[in-house]
């Protein structure tokens, strides 16, 4: 159980976290979503006792992170974003070292157990410097699991992994849900949807949305765009769709024709369907365009951002987009 109340973190003039509150329940995976620099890592560092908050309170596993830091640290497993490891040690040696410091009984056996759990038994005696990025990530995860913590805090555990490794890590995280509280940060929405029971979306140090993935998606899709695919000539169809009064914009994409509604609250789908039926076109597909994380951010942060910030964000999202498109296509291929 993690309870965060009005947590604030200032770095000099800059306020990285501006009074956030949320609850992560035991037996659930709570996803912590946000663009880079949103305050995810800062929040996680405060929850693990690495950094004290400027103001506010956080209760982790029943103890205050500031007042009873040692009690919290005993009960938390933490995987930092950069996965810092001692590169000169073997995977087994590193885990035994961490186990000794934590005072885990039967360190040797425990290290073997967690290595088995993350699927690294065959590389247990390899020096960490020789392991691939994905394997190192798993060593870091094994370290977080070593002492059977009540609370697991994982900062972007799947970043930089190949699709198969991503699936493996997600499986491990899903299995952990039963006996643990898991707080899991990511910026890939599809991942959050698959793994998390509850999502907390953070932007510029404030929580902009909270709820189950299905809830959030449903809320946001209402204002979303529509994908239309027919067998009729594209130009003709686009021309016809443009004449619908509730439609603001029609464009052609690789997926098909994308229709943007004029008013978020008015769904243009009935009219689109009508036009297609009237013209006797053969319809292949008519569905809301999947909402991706970038769109959610745009949607949720539009009101708060100033024009300059908005411009920055668009640039930033363009970069992010490239990454998530790649990871999504890769995922597609592994599912096949």
């Amino acid at each position, binding site marked *: 159980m993690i309870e965060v109340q009005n947590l604030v973190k200032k770095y000099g003039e800059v306020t990285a976290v501006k009074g956030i509150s949320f609850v992560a329940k035991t037996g659930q995976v709570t996803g912590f979503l946000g663009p880079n620099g949103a305050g995810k890592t800062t929040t996680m*560092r405060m929850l*693990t*006792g*690495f*950094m*004290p908050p400027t103001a506010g309170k956080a209760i982790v596993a029943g103890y205050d992170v500031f007042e009873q830091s*040692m009690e919290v*640290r*005993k*009960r*938390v497993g*933490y995987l*930092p974003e*950069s996965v*810092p*490891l*001692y*590169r*000169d*040690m073997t995977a087994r040696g590193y885990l035994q*070292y*961490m186990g*000794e*410091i*934590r*005072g*885990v*009984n039967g360190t040797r056996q425990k290290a073997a157990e967690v290595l088995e759990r993350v699927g690294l038994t065959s590389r247990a005696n390899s020096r960490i410097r020789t392991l691939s990025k994905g394997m190192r990530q798993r060593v870091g995860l094994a*370290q977080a699991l070593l*002492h*059977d913590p*009540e609370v697991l805090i994982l900062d972007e555990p799947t970043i930089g992994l190949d699709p198969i490794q991503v699936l493996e890590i997600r499986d491990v995280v899903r299995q952990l849900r039963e*006996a643990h509280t898991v707080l899991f940060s990511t910026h890939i929405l599809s991942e959050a949807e698959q793994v998390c029971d509850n999502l907390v979306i953070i932007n510029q140090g404030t929580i902009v949305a909270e709820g189950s993935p299905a809830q959030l998606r449903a809320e946001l899709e209402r204002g979303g765009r529509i994908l239309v695919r027919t067998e009729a000539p594209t130009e003709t169809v686009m021309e016809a769709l443009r004449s619908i009064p509730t439609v603001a914009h029609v464009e052609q994409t690789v997926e098909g024709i994308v229709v943007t509604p004029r008013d978020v609250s008015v769904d243009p789908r009935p009219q689109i369907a009508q036009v297609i039926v009237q013209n006797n076109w053969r319809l292949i597909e008519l569905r809301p365009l999947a909402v991706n994380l970038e769109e959610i951010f745009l949607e949720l942060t539009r009101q708060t951002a100033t024009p300059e910030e908005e411009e920055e964000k668009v640039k930033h999202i363009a970069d992010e987009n490239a990454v998530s498109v790649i990871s999504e296509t890769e995922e597609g291929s592994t599912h096949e």
Partner: protein
Amino acid sequence: MSSETVQEVRQASSTSALGQIWAVYKRELGLYFRSPVAYAVAFALLLLFGLIFTSNVSQMNQRAPADNLNFIPSLLTFLLFLVGPLLTMRLLAEETREGTLEVLMTLPMSESTFIIGKFLAVWTYYTVVLALTLVYYLILNAIGIPDHGRAVGVYLGAWLYGGAVLAISMVWSAVTEDQIVAAFLGAATVLILYLADLAAQFVSSLSFSENPQLTENLANAVRELGLTAHYNSTMFVGVIRAEDILYFVFLIIAALFITTRIVETRRWRA
């Protein structure tokens, strides 16, 4: 795993500061004996001592060479301004740079615990190098009659002196994450403390006061702050005074305390 066994495991895990110091100590000491730097330092020192020892013994073969034994530990204490920072520069700077400090600081272990563990490891390494120079003592013992009492003072002094220098240069490893910068600042600090005698001479040559006694007291105070005043004129000649031992012990404790505080404030700045 059922919830009962989870509970058992959670209760079974216990942490003691001594166990943690031991774990950190073992790892760091192992690193020294696996790292090329430590071997290079030991090799260079022992080669130098060997050459000096051989030339001294062969030149003084007509006289009793017993005093030469003292030359080697005292040379080691001088060279420590260079060797100490080289040995300690990695200790905390590397952890900061690699980010492993973040993991260490979220473990149920206080900063002082792992700093003490690391310090004891580097002091042990130094002790091993110092102990290796006892070879010359054994040789002298075979060909002459060295002053055993004085040797105790010389070696005890060199050992404490080393501890103080290592603790002081370790402070800089906590200040910066750049190992080279840490080494240079450490060397400068230790050299200043080594040269306090010169500063004292300079102070006593000044005539800023009517009262010559005041100048003399000031010069003495400066001298007492330095490392050499507590070694070269006391333990080096076989005089073991409590105040000198306390001086080195105080330096070690103060330096470790400062290091701990610096690492703690890293937490606030991070």
